[in-house]
Structure formats: structure tokens, C-alpha cells
């Protein structure tokens, strides 16, 4: 952890990487504003963690989130870090996936992150300090069959964040967009819990969520905006950029397997 501030806001804090991030910040005596729609999960995050303050809020609820930030800053002081970890990952073939599911996915994974960012980043820029951590995904760079909607949302996150990074350079706010490969969190069950997930990912061992959090801190400290945690992740990213057909051949071949 390389958090120098006092107050951090974490979305998606009821499970997975958001929860682990909240705990790490709390261990370091930070005041953590933990946001999620899952009240029960938030309860677990705050258990025996007196610095964790839970807020049930949908990141898509613009007005609700603005109020939350106002109240949180009034109570705890300026938010020094945001970790935009809230996301869902229902998988499936695009033509079979209901429109509502795709819409919800774009809403939470992309527009939710936009809501949080546009609410808090101006405050950070005004103060000339802060950390903004955007949870993208390697899937945002490397689309694969059965994960199209998720990939599209994460691609939007990456593009939005990369543009924002350049538009706000020199503002004093540290920014990272982390793009991990599959990570061993409950979200992985969402992707492939019922076996409908991308077959090309079946043999890819997930990395530990701790590795992702460590990579984020390294990125913030070294000033690297795009962060690819896990061995070989950067190579996959490069292959996608320079030899996209090679990657697609492998993905398609995996899908053709019986």
C-alpha cells in the first residue's frame, strides 16, 4: 500500500478486489468509505474494521452518489483516493444475451465509473491531490467470444480513463487504469460459474487479487498510468495490438472444441 492520504472511497467494496482493497486501506488506518449495493457483503467488509464506513448505493444513481460524497466528505474530510472497482460480469454469446443484461453491464461497469469519477475527480483537482484508480481489464483490450458485453464495457472504461488521464495531466492527481487478466475473485464465478463463460479462458489460471492491488500501488508510485498485473499480461496486450489475428485464431479454436 502506498496511500498517503486519510480518506478513501471504494466502490464494489462488498466482495472481491473492492473488498480486499477496502481492508488493506483500513489496515493502514485510512478511513474507508465502502460503497456497494450488496448490504450483506458490506457488513462482512466492515466486520471488526471500525475504519470502514459502509454505504449502500448504486453507482449508477447519480444524485444518490453525489449526496453520498457530500455527506462522506462532511463527516470524514476530503476523499484522497477513489478505487472504482464496482463491476458485474455476466457472460454469454452476444445474440443470446438479453439486451437488459448488456445494458446493465454497460451501466454499472462503465457509466457507474463515469458517475463516480465525474463526481469526485473535480474535487481532487481543486485540491491538487488524490489517487484515482480505474478498474479496467485485459478484456477491455482483448475481446473474446462469450465475454463481448463485458469487454465492450471495459474497453469504454479504458478509453474514457486514458483520455481523462491526458486531459488532467499536471493536476496533481495520480491516476492508474489497471487491466488485469482473470483474477481469483467471486466475479470469476459470474463469468464462468455455469460453464457459459469464454472457453479460451478455461486454461488460464487466475492471478491473486493481492497481485493486482500491489501492481496498482506500484503504478501510482511510479507514475505509470496503464498497469497490467500478472506474468505475461503485457505480452498478451502487445500480441493483441500487433498480431490480432493470431489471438483470435486461438480464441476461436478454443470455442470450437467439443
Amino acid at each position: 500500500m502506498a496511500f498517503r492520504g486519510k480518506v478513501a472511497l471504494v466502490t464494489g467494496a462488498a466482495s472481491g478486489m473492492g473488498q480486499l482493497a477496502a481492508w488493506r486501506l483500513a489496515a493502514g488506518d485510512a478511513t474507508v468509505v465502502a460503497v456497494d449495493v450488496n448490504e450483506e457483503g458490506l457488513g462482512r467488509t466492515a466486520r471488526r474494521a471500525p475504519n470502514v464506513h459502509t454505504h449502500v448505493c448504486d453507482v449508477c444513481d447519480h444524485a444518490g452518489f453525489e449526496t453520498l460524497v457530500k455527506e462522506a466528505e462532511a463527516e470524514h474530510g476530503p476523499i484522497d483516493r477513489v478505487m472504482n472497482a464496482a463491476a458485474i460480469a455476466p457472460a454469454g454469446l452476444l445474440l443470446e444475451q438479453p439486451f437488459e443484461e448488456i445494458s446493465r453491464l454497460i451501466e454499472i461497469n462503465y457509466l457507474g465509473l463515469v458517475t463516480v469519477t465525474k463526481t469526485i475527480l473535480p474535487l481532487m483537482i481543486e485540491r491538487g491531490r488524490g489517487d484515482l484508480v480505474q478498474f479496467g481489464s485485459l478484456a477491455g483490450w482483448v475481446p473474446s467470444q462469450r465475454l463481448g458485453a463485458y469487454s465492450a464495457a471495459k474497453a469504454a472504461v479504458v478509453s474514457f480513463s486514458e483520455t481523462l488521464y491526458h486531459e488532467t495531466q499536471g493536476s496533481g492527481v495520480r491516476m492508474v487504469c489497471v487491466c488485469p487478466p482473470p483474477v481469483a475473485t467471486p466475479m470469476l464465478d459470474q463469468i464462468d460459474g455455469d460453464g457459459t463463460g469464454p472457453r479460451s479462458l478455461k486454461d488460464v489460471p487466475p492471478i491473486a487479487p493481492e497481485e493486482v492491488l500491489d501492481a496498482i500501488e506500484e503504478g501510482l508510485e511510479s507514475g505509470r498510468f496503464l498497469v497490467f498485473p500478472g506474468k505475461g499480461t503485457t505480452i498478451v496486450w502487445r500480441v493483441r495490438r500487433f498480431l490480432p489475428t493470431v489471438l483470435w485464431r486461438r480464441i476461436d479454436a478454443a470455442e470450437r472444441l467439443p
Partner: protein
Amino acid sequence: MTFVDPVVDEPVVVDGETVTLPVEVRSAKMAVATFFVDGDAAQELIGYSGLRIAKQRGRAMCSLSAVQYTDNDLGPYNEIAVALVVDPHDKAPGAKVSMAGGTVTTFIHKLPVNQEFTCRAGRGIWGFPKWVANISYFESGGRTEVVLVDGGELVLSLSVKRSPIPIPARGDRSEMVMSCYSWCDGVLRRTSWVTRNQGTTGRIGGAVLELGASHPMTDELRGLGLPKRALFTMSTPRMSASFGPPEIIQV
């Protein structure tokens, strides 16, 4: 010394909350610096416990371990342990302590933490010498920087450089059984725990230890001959552990 029956493996109530044993740590990280210190001074320091320092040519091994507990039954918190390698209480003086066997017996002399709940649970269940202080655990530029401030006074700052050299765990590659003694309110206890480390690296030296001005704990460490060059350091980015019930040991 003889054993009495180990504490029964049943839930313990702390602050009105039930803590089930073993206590599971699912995610933590750790940085450790080990020093050779003056054996006689170390023996005098832990004399109250009735235990013997396992001396190596008159020297004692003293470890400063900083741990950040993340996903943990006792909640998230930071901790710094001052531990000394001791002879098992039931071994004859001078019996060779095998450090290659995977079990090193240590005595936890000090164990400041930065959260209340773990402090009370640690003292109540295992008799760990915990108290609440300010502990920061910071990673930057390949180093783990730990600072302990108690009552507004700097006690120590420890910087451990991350090494590229992996330390393979013994046996089944990752699981190690550790055993430690602790002394609290006149009762000596021994607790065994299992740790599973991933990605541990280590090296000779690699630590910068700075001590504060006049805190009692600072004075104790200075009395051991610290600060000095570390014998070796280790960093573990991912650790899990299970802490079972303690055995009460009677003199």
C-alpha cells in the same frame, strides 16, 4: 515446566463477539528483518518468561516482523513483532535447535498492533503482548517501510528492501508450522500456527532500522545492540495462516 491441558478448542468471546478457533488469516503480507544481538542482554530482557535464549556462539537471534493483515477473522490491521529465538521449554540446555526442520521456537516479546479488537483478542486468547499504537506499513520503490509511533513518540522505523531471490518453502513447498511462546499477566503460553507463504523473497542484509529517542521499547532494542546490519531479510507479498488455541505452560 509441565503442560496443563491445552485450552479447549472452542469459541472465545471478545467484546461480546464470538471468535472461533482456529483464527484464519486468509490474506496478509509481511516483511521481516532478523538480527544477531547480544545473547546475555537478550536473556536478561526475556528473563521474566522463564525461557532460555537459543544462543549461537553467545549471540541471540532477534526478528522484527511487520505484518499487514488484510482478510482476517480479527479484522484488518498492522502489527510489529519483536521475537527472539528460544529453546523449547522442555528441551535440555544446549540441545541443538533444528532450524531446518521447519519449526523455530520463538518468544514474542512485544507485539504492538494498530486496532483495538485484535489487541483484546490477542491478549485474551493467546496472551500476546499486544497494545495499540500507530503503525504504518508502506510500500514504495521496492521497499517496505514500517513506522511505529507510540504515544506520539517514534519507536522505530524499519525499511526492508525487496529481494529478487525467491525463498522456497520447505516440505510441501508452502506450509510451515511455527511455534511461539508468549507471556501475559504471569502466564506463559505456547501457540502453534500454520503459515502458507507465496512469493517470498529474501537476502542477506537488506534492512535499515532506525530507533527513536527515548521510548522504553526503543531503549530495550538499543540494549540489545540495535540498530545494526541485519543478518537477513524476507518479504512475503501473500501469506495465509491459521492460529490454533494456545497451550498454557506452568513453571
